[in-house]
């Protein structure tokens, strides 16, 4: 047996290191490039009108995306109201009550599949359920589509976060005579509060940038959202429409909308980061 040469070992080590460093640089470079383009081209669209005025036809000066901004906020908020509680309680079932149940395995499995389902399929599904049946697009349908995307995300993080709470805490609560539901809501939730909040925030951040499900449900509109029972303006579909249009002023608006969404998601992610770090 001949000993392996040191030279070979070193060169392989160098190669692996070089490839992984290069890969990470490529990844970061693309990200920086995208961010740079969005900021560079989007910042010019930001002005008072952008945030306060309704859109104007191409070529007409002024106008903004106030309706789409409001629409995105309202649809996302409604989706959060529907999706987070359902996801939260599904997570509670998986982590706390489903232990003795045969149902928890299938629930977890389906939830994983749902998490990996392309969002456009959710969009088409809600289109068939809530748009075709009432024969018009609506902000509600959009909120429901986003909520469906949120449920498995929230359920999964909730389960993980609740599993991090030590059983000794559950035991001491139960040993004091605290009923099971109260142990979960009063004590386990309190212990996992930051994790649950973080998970919900990340789910909101994730859906606030979704386009495909809204394209089939909320569609888009140049008017104020009103009661959401008609096509509802929103930023992502606006980006889709405006960016594809031949008008430079609309394209400019699309850049502005892109920047705004990016900033929103960044803000939510930073909030989540901050919460998690404070946790220790």
């Amino acid at each position, binding site marked *: 047996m001949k000993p392996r040469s040191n030279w070979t070992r070193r060169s392989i080590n160098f190669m692996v290191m070089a490839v992984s460093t290069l890969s990470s640089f490529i990844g970061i470079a693309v990200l920086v490039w995208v961010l740079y383009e969005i900021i560079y081209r989007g910042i010019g669209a930001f002005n008072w009108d952008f945030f306060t005025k309704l859109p104007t036809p191409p070529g007409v000066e002024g106008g903004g995306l106030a309706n789409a901004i409001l629409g995105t906020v309202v649809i996302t908020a409604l989706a959060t109201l529907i999706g987070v509680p359902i996801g939260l309680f599904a997570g509670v079932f998986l982590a706390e009550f489903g*232990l*003795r149940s045969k149902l928890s395995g299938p629930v977890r499995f389906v939830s994983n599949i749902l998490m990996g389902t392309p969002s456009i399929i959710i969009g088409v599904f809600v289109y068939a359920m809530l748009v075709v049946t009432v024969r018009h697009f609506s902000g509600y349908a959009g909120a429901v589509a986003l909520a469906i995307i949120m449920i498995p995300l929230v359920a999964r993080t909730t389960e993980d976060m609740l599993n991090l709470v*030590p*059983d*000794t*805490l*559950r*035991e*001491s*609560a*139960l*040993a*004091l*005579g*605290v*009923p099971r539901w*109260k142990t979960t809501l*009063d*004590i386990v939730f*309190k*212990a996992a*509060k930051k994790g649950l909040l973080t998970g919900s925030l990340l789910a909101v951040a994730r859906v606030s940038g979704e386009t495909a499900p809204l394209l089939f449900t909320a569609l888009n509109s140049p008017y104020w959202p009103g009661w959401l029972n008609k096509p509802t303006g929103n930023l992502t579909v606006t980006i889709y429409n405006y960016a594809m249009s031949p008008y430079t002023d609309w394209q400019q608006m699309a850049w502005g909308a892109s920047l705004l969404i990016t900033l929103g998601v960044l803000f939510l992610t930073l909030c989540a980061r901050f919460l998690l770090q404070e946790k220790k």
Partner: protein
Amino acid sequence: MMMPAEKSDNLFCSLAGLVDERKTSTTVDSDPSKQAVKISVRNLNFFYGHHQALFDNTIDLFANQVTAIIGPSGCGKSTHIRTYNRIFELYRNQKAQGQILLDGEDVLSPEMNLIDLRKRVGMIFQKPSPFPMTIFENVAYGLRLHYRIGRNELADRVEMALKRSALWDEVQDKLDRPGTELSGGQQQRLCIARAIAVEPEVLLMDEPSSAIDPVATAKIEDLIEALKEKYTIVLVTHNMQQAARVSDYTAFFYNGSIVEFGRTEQIFKKPAMKQTEDYITGRFG
């Protein structure tokens, strides 16, 4: 098993039916004193799935006495006391068979109200586990849960519980700080305060001082001494000196069975069983 008949009759009528079974119970060779039985365990078997962890445990715990449970790791000490408040039911696949009578009421019966049972049988765990709340709320939580209580009385009772657990002087200025900010020993005394605030009848202590320093341990031992005036205490411990110091009775567990049970002096000075002697003299375990 020595148990004064007249006591058992007037206090726990249903115990009368157990007289016959007493023959099968572990022999206690001393103390026919006037102690009332608080918890009476008969032929308790315990299973983790298919694995049997306790075998025919039979023992009587006397009211207002400290009973220490000693034995090597994994011999079933904790498993045994975790049946008294049915806390094991949190987990899948764990089940207990046999009879545990608390003042004559069958703890393991499906009719037993768990919340009521756990109010009567408090528990302190090895790892201090304060709730994620303020020091005050940690103690007040159980009180509010079990009693309708006004704000002033609540404050009084919290203070009383903290005084009885010898923690008041250290925390009276920071009742609104999170309980988790306290040191390990203080946290454990907070847990004791939390448990005694609701006025239980029995206090189960599962190695309460194994995770804390000697000074805090000494405080907790003093506390046990003081608490037995009001409560029946069951103390699981790895520390034989501790058992000898604080307990009135001692049960020696080995491989899920109760090898010997008796007055603590007797167990430590002239154990009847060879296994007990070997363990106490440090020949194994």
